[in-house]
């Protein structure tokens, strides 16, 4: 059962980051995660031509978003022609309502899910559970987090912050069996346990990595095989897709499908790419009888034509997270949003509004180092988008800051006033400094000295 954690009511972002910085286990897990991702990326660049593939990928996504209405129309027309049902959901509520109504109409009791950030975004699990359905996350990492009552930490690898002993404890509690700590036994248990749910589920819910407009095919990429079973066994398959996740044809799809695992996991292939073109055909003996494609807008198409349009190019590979020094320090859960890391800091305010608690805070959890832009396979200038979004944030805190900024600008655009301020500061540093250092500054400046000493001479005396 998912224990709901409502981000909006949770502790503010700063508190979550403080907690994360102090969590040694988390920091160690994140360090090893970052190291292996970096090694994988180096390999893809050196041996598999990763850099050469990026320019074309950027062009493909730019073109996809330019033609988005036309591509979505074509995708919808093809899915219907294949026997599927398409529902265009304007927002989260519409999307969950559709799935709920479908589940009720079909008398469904058990829903098996494969990993989908879009379903996290619309809080589908909570809605289904409130309506009395049982929802099982079948991706191993997500299932582990479901047992632990936590939110996923990352797009690609949800449970990187838990170690094997913590996982074994969860499985023992769930099963009542005395399971050993070793990985193989734990995975074998999960396989056995979740097969019960694959066999019994009434509805399988998956995400969609890419929709291919030309044939109306939905691509679901994975390594474990649970999406295979979720999209093949239950009678009904519901696929939830972000409206921006569409390419025109198979040449574009081949390129992006090749690039995705290279960017995400430093490998030239993920284990499975499931390509769903409608429900089962006449004569076929497996596959769902019904396919429902829910296309989630949720604020996406409104970004077209704005200075934030490039955020729609994202293929949700997760590379920006792994490359981000902030994410590498605090992990994904601290962000408190379905989307974490640099892309999360950009699209959370764009989709939820810049005044929402996390929408207004996340864009500032960044040193603007640009590693994300460097890592992004489709070249999204996330560091630039973050600065633009900061300008658009409007909360009481930010409005107070704006008043301070006005005073700053009024002073610093005038050389005489500016130079007077410089003299005052230099005097203050000399007065407050002891042996060339200040260890505690007064007032709001105290936040600097909460972490560092401030040198009052240069070069600094060590």
């Amino acid at each position, binding site marked *: 059962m998912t224990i709901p954690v409502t981000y909006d009511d949770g502790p503010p972002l700063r508190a979550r980051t403080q907690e994360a910085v102090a969590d040694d286990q988390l920091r160690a897990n994140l360090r090893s995660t970052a190291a292996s991702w970096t090694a994988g990326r180096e390999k893809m660049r050196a041996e598999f031509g990763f850099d050469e593939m990026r320019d074309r990928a950027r062009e493909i996504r730019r073109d996809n978003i330019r033609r988005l209405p036309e591509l979505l129309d074509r995708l919808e027309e093809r899915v219907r022609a294949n026997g599927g049902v398409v529902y265009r959901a304007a927002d989260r509520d519409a999307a969950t309502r559709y799935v709920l109504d479908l589940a009720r109409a079909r008398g469904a009791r058990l829903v098996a899910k494969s990993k989908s950030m879009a379903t996290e975004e619309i809080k589908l699990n909570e809605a289904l559970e409130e309506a009395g359905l049982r929802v099982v996350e*079948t991706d191993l990492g997500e299932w582990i987090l479901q047992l632990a009552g936590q939110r996923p930490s990352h797009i690609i690898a949800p449970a990187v912050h838990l170690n094997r002993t913590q996982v074994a404890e969860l499985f023992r509690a769930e099963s009542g069996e005395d399971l050993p700590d070793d990985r193989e036994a734990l995975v074998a248990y999960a396989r056995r346990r979740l097969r019960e749910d694959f066999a019994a589920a009434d509805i399988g819910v998956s995400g969609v990595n890419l929709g291919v407009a030309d044939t109306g095919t939905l691509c679901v990429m994975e390594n474990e095989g649970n999406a295979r079973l979720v999209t093949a*066994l239950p009678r009904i398959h519901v696929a939830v897709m972000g409206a921006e996740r569409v390419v025109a044809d198979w040449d574009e799809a*081949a390129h992006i499908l090749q690039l995705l695992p290279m960017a995400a996991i430093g490998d030239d*292939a993920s*284990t*499975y790419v499931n390509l769903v*073109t409608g429900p*089962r055909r006449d004569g*076929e003996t497996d596959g769902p009888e019904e396919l429902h494609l829910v296309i989630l807008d949720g604020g996406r198409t409104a970004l077209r034509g704005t200075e934030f349009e490039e955020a729609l190019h994202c293929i949700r590979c997760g590379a920006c997270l792994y490359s981000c020094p902030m994410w590498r320090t605090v992990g994904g859960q601290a962000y408190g949003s379905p989307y974490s890391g640099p892309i999360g800091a950009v699209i959370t305010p764009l989709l939820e509004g810049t005044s929402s608690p996390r929408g207004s805070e996340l864009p500032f959890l960044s040193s603007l180092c640009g590693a994300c832009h460097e890592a992004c396979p489709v070249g999204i200038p996330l560091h630039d988008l973050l600065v633009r979004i900061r300008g658009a944030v409007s909360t009481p805190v930010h409005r107070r800051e704006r008043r301070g900024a006005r005073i700053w600008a009024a002073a610093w655009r005038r050389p005489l006033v500016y130079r007077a301020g410089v003299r005052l500061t230099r005097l203050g540093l000399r007065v407050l400094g002891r042996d060339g250092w200040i260890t505690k500054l007064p007032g709001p400046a105290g936040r600097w000295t909460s972490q560092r000493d401030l040198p009052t001479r240069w070069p600094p005396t060590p």
Partner: protein
Amino acid sequence: MAADPLTDRFIGALARRRATGEAVAGADCADACVAQLREWGAQRALVPDDLWLAELRVPETMAAAGFDVVMWPSDRGWRELLGLDHAPPTCAVTVPVRAVAERGTLVIASSPTHGRSLDAVGWWHLAVLADDRIDGTLAEALRATYPPGAAAASGVSLVSGPSRTSDVEKITTYGAHGALAEHVVVVRSSRSG
């Protein structure tokens, strides 16, 4: 028989996918399959009712060797096919429609005689692949799988090795929800003769 470069590249790429493979003449295919079943310790083989597979005598040779051969489509329930309720350890046999040499990827497509999820339901995955179905690149294989104007198979999977997860401590473990291991028997056609 002259070696086929695409076949060699494909089998070489399988190593990267943590799968194994071999190229055999048609007459030796059935025995190669049986040998693999024995190596894995399978007791049951789940086999698609495929004409070419029958011509190669794969199902009958397996049965003769003492394996419990279950043909697909089967009326046994999902619980048994998935290996629950103490079903015997099962190897799923597939007949891929295409393959990708540069990545070691198999293209499995659904049809009335071939389940879309065949390779994932068993413990092990044994693929019998005609060498003239091997393409060089993913783009080529996808174009061949989705020719313009033709109706596409409703369930296609690009399978690149056994099922894996690194969700426990970022260390790769196999046999998550799909096959624990994969072996491909590439059957040489007259193309490479």
